């Protein structure tokens, strides 16, 4: 590796050629503040507009200060990161940014978790000169089913634009206008609701300020919990338990399943269930659908739609409804675990405990913001009563726990309630990229071959590469599997299918980086991809620790079929557990 010699703040160092001043400084313990810059290393995501100018440093011999996040080191450079000139510039630039930013930190959704606030604290800003005469750029507040856009708080870091366009290729957001009026917005500055937004929430996950936040449903949940006429049950998605602890200061990747269940009980939920139960159910339905299509294919049916695509990610469903409406018949018709759970809860379980549908409230805890929209879809309700009433994110749950005076760290571990709290290890790994297809493979293999899997872990399906593929030998048949996380990667696979170039039999798609562990509702990663890796590791650990690791071996699932559904893909199953898709591409322009 080529090395260059340079001097930073009086220290002579040697660093690899091609790295930035910021990274070189970091390597010797000098932490130059950055604001707009963001890198998710293992996911190939980098936002480097060089726009905020907070990270400027003095480079000897240069006329202007250099942005350290995007200036590469050069041989012989002499850099001062904390000279009077650099510090004055940094402070003045921050004052400028703050002069066009609302000062309602006390009541901002991002308070305490805001990069801009941290920067103001770090630089000790006490006064913003001329604030009383400074015009602020203001924009219309935009509230959608999942996301709130308060662009008065936007600092134009462009992270959301990068996620929405480069990583997700959704294209709902773009920089619009110019100069002081410049802002990130959907086309025509219309509401997000009318745009091609999939509510994946990746914009929210990376927003350094309170400009993009989730719609908070905690108050609805609190009032429901306090309504004596309601029986309130809660389901928790697999990725939540691998990340919730971070909100309480635990190291990323700490599993807090037992504490979480305890906390939910204390919050007053009548039944604490697990979405994983529904994930096992999903495998039964989706796996069967996959096997059916494959069998037809092997029997020479030319019209069968292959590859089959997973359908448990609601942002992904929104994505293809908007962008690939002509391919509606390719994804599995299986509903997502959240919705399967709601559907079963409000029929099978409601009957079981003798509660009327309208008196049963289903709340979901999700790592996801698209789930908020998904549970509001009309097709997932009966006579106006939704299968899932409210969906709150991991972050909202953490706030709720704190607000309810629960000392999370002191909580004993508790177990989920039965029957809908029981799940297999296969269901747990739904929370990470590759997990759904691995779970499906475990079941499909055993059902198809009627033999026991020699090895449960499919290492070849795991990892963080954006697009992965593997061929699984199922008793002589080579099952070709594709995996994509991130909608931009998904788009590539879809384009191939459209062009007839795809050679896969089954494809798993998750919208968020790393899958649900990197969902838009998770504790903020602040650009640290190590956090995502730790969460994935935790998920696989939980799987390995489970006594049952294949969905079709979950006794409560088997009981559910026996008592209620009959068999996978039965008419009843179809009615309660499957769905259909809509063409949302032809939206007419409306603000």
């Amino acid at each position, binding site marked *: 590796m080529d090395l260059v010699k340079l001097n930073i703040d009086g220290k002579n160092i040697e660093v690899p050629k091609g790295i930035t001043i910021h990274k070189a400084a970091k390597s010797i313990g000098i932490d130059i503040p950055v604001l707009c810059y963001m890198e998710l290393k293992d996911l190939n995501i980098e936002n480097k507009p060089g726009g905020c100018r907070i990270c400027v440093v003095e480079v000897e011999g240069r006329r202007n200060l250099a942005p350290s996040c995007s200036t590469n080191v050069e041989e012989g450079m002499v850099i001062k990161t904390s000279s009077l000139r650099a510090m004055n510039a940094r402070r003045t630039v921050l004052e400028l940014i703050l002069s066009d930013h609302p000062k309602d930190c006390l009541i901002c959704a991002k308070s305490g978790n805001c990069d801009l606030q941290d920067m103001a604290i770090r630089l000790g800003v006490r006064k913003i000169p001329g604030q009383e005469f400074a015009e602020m750029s203001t924009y219309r507040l935009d509230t959608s089913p999942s996301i709130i856009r308060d662009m008065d708080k936007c600092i134009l870091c462009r992270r959301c634009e990068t996620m929405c366009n480069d990583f997700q290729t959704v*294209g709902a957001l773009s920089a*619009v206008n110019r100069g002081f009026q410049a802002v990130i917005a959907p*086309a025509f500055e219309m509401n997000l609701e009318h745009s091609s937004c999939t509510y994946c929430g990746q914009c929210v996950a990376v927003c350094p300020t309170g400009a993009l936040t989730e719609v908070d449903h905690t108050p609805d949940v609190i009032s429901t919990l306090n309504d004596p006429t309601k029986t309130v049950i809660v389901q928790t998605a697999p990725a939540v338990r691998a990340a919730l602890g971070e909100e309480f200061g635990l190291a990323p990747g700490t599993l807090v399943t037992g504490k979480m269940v305890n906390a939910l009980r204390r919050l007053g939920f009548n039944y604490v269930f697990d979405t994983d139960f529904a994930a096992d159910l999903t495998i039964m339905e989706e796996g069967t659908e996959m096997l059916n299509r494959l069998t037809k294919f092997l029997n020479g049916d030319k019209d069968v739609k292959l590859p089959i695509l997973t359908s448990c990610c609601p942002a992904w469903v929104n994505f293809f409804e908007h962008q690939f409406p002509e391919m509606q018949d390719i994804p599995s018709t299986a509903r997502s675990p959240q919705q399967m759970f709601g559907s079963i809860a409000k029929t099978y379980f409601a009957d079981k405990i003798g509660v009327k549908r309208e008196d049963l409230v289903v709340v979901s805890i999700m790592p996801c913001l698209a789930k908020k929209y998904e549970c509001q879809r009309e097709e997932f309700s009966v006579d106006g009563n939704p299968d899932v009433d409210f969906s709150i994110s991991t972050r909202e749950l953490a706030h709720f726990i704190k607000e309810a005076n629960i000392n999370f760290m002191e909580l004993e571990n508790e177990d989920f309630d039965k029957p809908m709290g029981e799940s297999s290890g296969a269901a747990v790994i739904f929370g990470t990229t590759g997990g759904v297809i691995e779970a499906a493979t475990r079941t499909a293999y055993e059902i198809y071959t009627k033999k026991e899997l020699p090895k449960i872990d499919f290492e070849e399906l795991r990892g963080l590469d954006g697009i992965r593929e593997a061929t699984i030998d199922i008793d002589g048949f080579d099952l070709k599997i594709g995996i994509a996380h991130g909608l931009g990667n998904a788009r590539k696979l879809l384009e191939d299918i459209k062009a007839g170039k795809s050679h896969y039999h089954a494809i798993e798609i998750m919208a968020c980086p790393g899958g649900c562990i990197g969902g838009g509702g998770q504790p903020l990663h602040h650009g640290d991809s190590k956090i995502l890796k730790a969460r994935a590791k935790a998920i696989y650990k939980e799987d390995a620790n489970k006594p049952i690791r294949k969905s079709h071996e979950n006794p409560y699932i088997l009981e559910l079929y026996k008592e209620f559904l009959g068999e996978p893909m039965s008419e009843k199953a179809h009615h309660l557990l499957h769905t259909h898709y809509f063409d949302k591409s032809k939206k007419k322009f409306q603000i």
Partner: protein
Amino acid sequence: MSSVKIELRKDQVDKIRQIAKTFKNDPGELINVLHKCQGEFGYLPAEVQEVVADELKMSVAKVYGVVTFYSFFSMIPTGRYPISICTGTACYVRGAEKVLAEFKKQLNIEVGTSSPDGKFSLSCLRCVGACGLAPVVLVGDKTFGRVSPDGVKDILKEFEEM
């Protein structure tokens, strides 16, 4: 940016498609396509941008981002006689502001809007490069040089009778 809601006729949609096609539906030609469309429609309503985005296989948000970046593009229909006042330095130094104020007063409209009858619209532009004639006013293709506030009335009269 606000926009008037319109319904595009099929022939208008076809026209946009044809324009896009002459530029090989290349997203890199977006600005050229928008120029042609604005030439065709006089402005760039949201509906036109949607078709353009579709044809160039890019997001409407990006198209809108470009439209709002460049001052030459407008989402508001211009008057039959669009009046542009040059506010470049040479014109400024020679009193363009007073001329602009007079136009606003005479037409009783603000910059960026049209008169209620759709006859005149008012806009400012930066330096048309006719600094020798400062202050300069353009009405459609016609250039008026050395305009004084007193001369505004005469300019308007010229078009009133048309």
